[in-house]
């Protein structure tokens, strides 16, 4: 065929771009699937917000009291969220004390020391640990951790429900999260840095602790914040092991270490309150029903804050190599 003929020939109707309304519809529904996530967020915000508004409109409740009072007694109409926040933060703190050293050390070993065989042994174990449901960890806390703690410290000191047992088990629960996020951060450190350090005569330990960890610090910090957010939102372990009574306190008159920060007694958390209050047949439009939304809203913003903080850390302090 002559090439001139091809270029000169008019484009026939069969070669023109065909309209495909079916395809437009498909793309539209794919977009709708993506946009549904926005609807979910809006739904969460709307529901939490509107029911919380009902809660705060109730004459027994005032916003100021909610965020300043250190007594939570729904039966008596006293709603101060601090005892629940105290429980949550205390358990989160203990969990981090357990999980950060173990998770970080595990990550350094896996990333810098382990041979592929050792890695292939340990990685699946950490993955199994991730896959175990939290309610099973709760069972573990009650049947194993609490009796052990009571055996060590004496059952007169350690209550059946206590913050320490819950905190340690939540810590075990988030170890794999800390270690895998820290390992990812260390894996992103370019090998040239390691090689340069080795070339200067540094040992493997010096390379790990003085070159790789500092270089990956932003990622590691971000991972710890994510783990913290996970611990704050953890429900089953704290509901089962930390008990159902909020630790009401009065600053000044209650002793700090033997009561307010006593790790051997129970303390209800925000998630624990939500779970316990709603586990019965809860009736709508009661103050109890509305209170779980107000606490949920607080919890939502706490975890959202932590998650955005983690992203901020990565964005702000990330070292761009090459």
């Amino acid at each position, binding site marked *: 065929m002559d090439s001139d003929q091809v270029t000169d020939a008019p484009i026939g109707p069969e070669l023109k771009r065909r309209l495909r309304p079916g395809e437009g519809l498909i*793309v539209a529904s794919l977009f709708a*699937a*993506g946009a549904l*996530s926005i609807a979910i967020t809006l739904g969460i915000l709307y529901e939490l917000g509107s029911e919380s508004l009902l809660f705060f409109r109730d004459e027994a409740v005032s916003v100021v009291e909610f965020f300043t009072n250190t007594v939570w007694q729904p039966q008596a109409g006293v709603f101060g969220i601090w005892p629940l926040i105290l429980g949550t933060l205390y358990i989160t703190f203990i969990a981090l004390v357990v999980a950060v050293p173990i998770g970080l050390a595990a990550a350094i*070993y896996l990333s810098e020391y382990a041979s592929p065989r050792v890695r292939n042994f340990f990685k699946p174990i950490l993955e199994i640990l991730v*896959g175990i449901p939290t309610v*099973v960890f709760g069972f573990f806390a009650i049947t194993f951790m609490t009796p052990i703690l009571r055996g060590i410290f004496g059952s007169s000191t350690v209550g059946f429900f206590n913050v320490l047992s819950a905190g340690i088990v939540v810590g075990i629960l988030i170890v794999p999260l800390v270690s895998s996020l820290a390992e990812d951060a260390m894996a992103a450190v370019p090998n040239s840095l390691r090689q340069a350090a080795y070339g200067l005569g540094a040992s493997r330990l010096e390379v790990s602790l003085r070159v790789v960890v500092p270089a990956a610090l932003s990622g590691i910090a971000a991972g710890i914040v994510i783990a913290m957010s996970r611990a704050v939102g953890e429900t089953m372990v704290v*509901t089962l092991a930390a008990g159902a009574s909020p630790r009401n306190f009065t600053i000044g008159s209650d002793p700090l270490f033997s009561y307010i920060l006593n790790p051997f007694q129970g303390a209800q958390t925000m998630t624990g309150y939500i779970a316990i209050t709603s586990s019965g047949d809860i009736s709508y439009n009661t103050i109890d029903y509305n209170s779980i939304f107000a606490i*949920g809203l607080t919890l939502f913003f706490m975890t959202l804050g932590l998650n955005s903080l983690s992203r901020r850390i990565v964005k702000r302090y990330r070292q761009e190599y090459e």
Partner: protein
Amino acid sequence: MSLTEQRSSPSRYFPSDDEYAGLLDKRSRRARVIQTVLLGALAVAVLALVTLLYTIINDSFGLVAQINANEPEDVVASFGYDPARVGLGDLTKDELVVALQGGIERNVGRRLEREQRFYADRLVFESQEKWDEVCARGDAPAGCDSAPRDHGNVLRLVEERIIKPDIVAATTLQASVTHPQAFKDSVRASFADNPERYEGYTYEQVRYKWRAWLSWQFVTSPSSSTPEIAGISTAILGSIWLVIITIAFAIPVGVGAAVYLEEFARPNRINDLIQTNINNLAGVPSIIYGILGLAVFVRVLEPVTSGSLFLDDPAPNGRTVLSAGLTLGLLTLPVVIISSQEALRAVPNSLRQAGMGLGATKWQTVRSHILPIAVPGILTGTILAVARAIGETAPLILVGAAGFITTSPSGPFSQFTALPIQIFQWTSLPQAEWQHLAAAASLTLLILLLTLNAGAVVLRNRYSRRSL
């Protein structure tokens, strides 16, 4: 340390050979110690897992101190068999029915027969005229047109109604193996110290026997308020229904959203917002999804989720399988989207370009080339997400696994209980028997999840071997 030491004392640029060897020794000793500490951290993680599994298995089996109203040996002997060689389960169905006839009140037997008859062709407790009369009524009982009870069912009735086992104490696997006598002594002492706890039983009636709390009977029996016969079949069925609804919702929507974001979305503000939002949703605690499910599915959409819009006998409220399944679907959605996106991103760009080059539209390329290649990756991520959903407890508590349920769910509009809920409820009860049941249920759940995870790993390995 040695590097800084050298730097801080510039007069010693060149240490003597002995000093050099000493420094090197110190350095490598320190390195070895810290390396051991690092490895120790991993060992702690392994130890935690091993301890957890050990605790669960330890509580799932063990000795029990049991008091029977009638001994199974006596029942077997009453038919002239040698109790040493013939067990209760070896009796025929006819013999078991005879034993039942001899052991229970006639009106109790009638009730049992109305629930489900013993034989298709004859009646055991009820007279024929009365039966016909009852079955002719408008509210005929279930037994009128159901299949007759099988051997296992009658055996269970005999155990429940004739043997009437009552476990007065139970111990762990480890204690049963190492100190069985200590357990027996403690039961004896307990009988001697507070006999009023045992309501007229004497220590002589106690029989010690091995009990596997996790047994086939446990897996196939419905939940019950007596720990001796309680099982998890209702909970397992509930969990299966939940998984079906979760998958039906989360996979199409999740994969659709992932395809949109990876293949069609141009980088503009709306699409960026969607992406950020999905990442944020993945970090929202599961209990918040539970609150959302309670407010939206259980309460606002009650006419739909209870089935009252289109069923004659709807559930009394919106706390149904459908509500819970959709809540878990929402919870799983971000995870499914993110893992599907990763799978799509792993498909090489050359395929997209080849599709375009041949004049295919974007959707044609995606449907016939990109998606089929990404399917194993998508499936792996989805299985892991679903495994996570099966173990979720907190959102289910909120959307109302309504406490004590003994009937299996029959469809999306039934009230239900689920495995993790059952574990939660049993764990919160004080008596030791419930702890053993909780352990057995946990073990079942773990086996189920490990199987799913192993499936995902196998799929991933096959996929990576075939990777392009």
